[in-house]
Structure formats: C-alpha cells, structure tokens
C-alpha cells in the first residue's frame, strides 16, 4: 500500500522535503513507518524515534495501523499562539 507523508517546520528543513509518497506492507503501523524511514539513513535518521504523528489530521499513537491512501504528518513540537 502507499501512504503520503508530510513534514513540517524543523522536520521539513532537516529532510529537505515537505512531502513523500511511501510504499509500505499492508497493515503497517505508524511506528513501523517511522523505523522504515529512519533506516534510509541520512537525512531521514534525523527524524526522532517517536515523533508526534497525525494520521488523516488526528494525532495517533505509534501502534496505530495505517491504510492505503492515509495522509501521515510528522509534527515537530508545536509553538502556536
């Protein structure tokens, strides 16, 4: 299956990209996606091991399962207001 990943702010700057399509085995979890990305090496290993992640605009835990077509956003610590 394929998911769409989004990177914001410091993560986007670190990776040099705001968005990436990623192929994953069916039933992968958020945590597995993070591990897979980090295993690509530099610059992806600059992502934290357990970043805050939103799936389809809701923040979820690392064990949340992904589905084909999900929008997965990597969210650095926020500083709005």
């Amino acid at each position: 299956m394929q998911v769409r990943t989004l990177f914001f702010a410091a993560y986007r700057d670190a990776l040099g990209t705001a968005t990436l399509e990623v192929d994953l085995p069916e039933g992968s979890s958020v945590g597995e996606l993070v591990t897979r990305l980090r295993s690509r090496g530099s610059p992806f290993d600059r992502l934290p091991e357990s970043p805050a992640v939103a799936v389809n605009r809701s923040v979820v835990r690392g064990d949340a399962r992904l589905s084909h077509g999900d929008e997965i956003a990597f969210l650095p610590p926020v500083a709005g207001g």
Partner: protein
Amino acid sequence: MSRGAGPGPARSRVAIVRGSIDPGEVLALVGGAGDGAVLLFLGTVRDHADGRRVDGLRYEAYQEMAEGVLGTIADEAAGQIGSDRIAVVHRIGDLAIGEVSVAIAVSSPHRAEAYQASRYVIEEIKKRLPVWKLEQYVDGEAAWVAGRKLEAIAEPKEMAR
C-alpha cells in the same frame, strides 16, 4: 471563517489566515444583546525571546488540520461556558514585531465565563495547534522555537475514523 469540527454542534468561528488580523473585525464576530462581557486576547510578536533580540517571526501551520483543531478548541470552550460567541483567528506567514499572531474574542452574559473561555482557548492552542514558529534574530540567524510535543487523543485511531 470556517466552522469548527469537533464534538458537539459546531458553533464557533475560526480561521487560519495569511493576511494581517484586524482586532476590530474579530471583536465584531462576538457580542450580543444578552452579553455583558466581551474579552479580546491578542498574541503579538515580541522583540525578544530568551534574551535574544528578535526581528520577526515566521509562522507555519499544517493548515487543514489546524483549522479543525481550532474549531474543536473553540467549541470545547463554548460548551464549557454555554456561549456560542467565540471567534479565533491565527495568522501564518511572516510577521513583524508588534503584529498580531492570534486573536481570540469571546462574549458571554457574565465576565467570569468570558475570562475562562478566553484563557482556555489560548492555553489549548499552545498545547494542540499544529503551528510552528521560526524566530528570526537581529543577528541574521533563525531558529524554530522549541515547542510542546503533541499528544495522541485517548481513543484509538480505529474508533476516531
């Protein structure tokens, strides 16, 4: 202005905008003949942070999610005080010193509720809104402000979808 997505009826007016925020326009979104109190909070860009001189800020949002979160926060505040007169506008893009980054207007029959709701909205924004800010210093450097880690909502994703 979009309506908030969240638990309960959507009643609040919220927006993420790129242009400058007019406090009077945000104020005009609340109030009513039954209200005795109106409270307007403005967050403004300070010229210093942690002892460094700041030249300006760049705000970035995960916009599609941020508008939903703002609506949820505003609706939660509205539900707490039983008022539907809450408006929240957050600006993104490049802001100069003194410019307004966020405006929160609340009106209610009595003042205690207006203060409660206003404070709730700004505190929750700091915790939950997917917005980041890049501080641009007078010396030419820039850095993303260290923020707060977003927390997963309690319910599992399967239930939330």
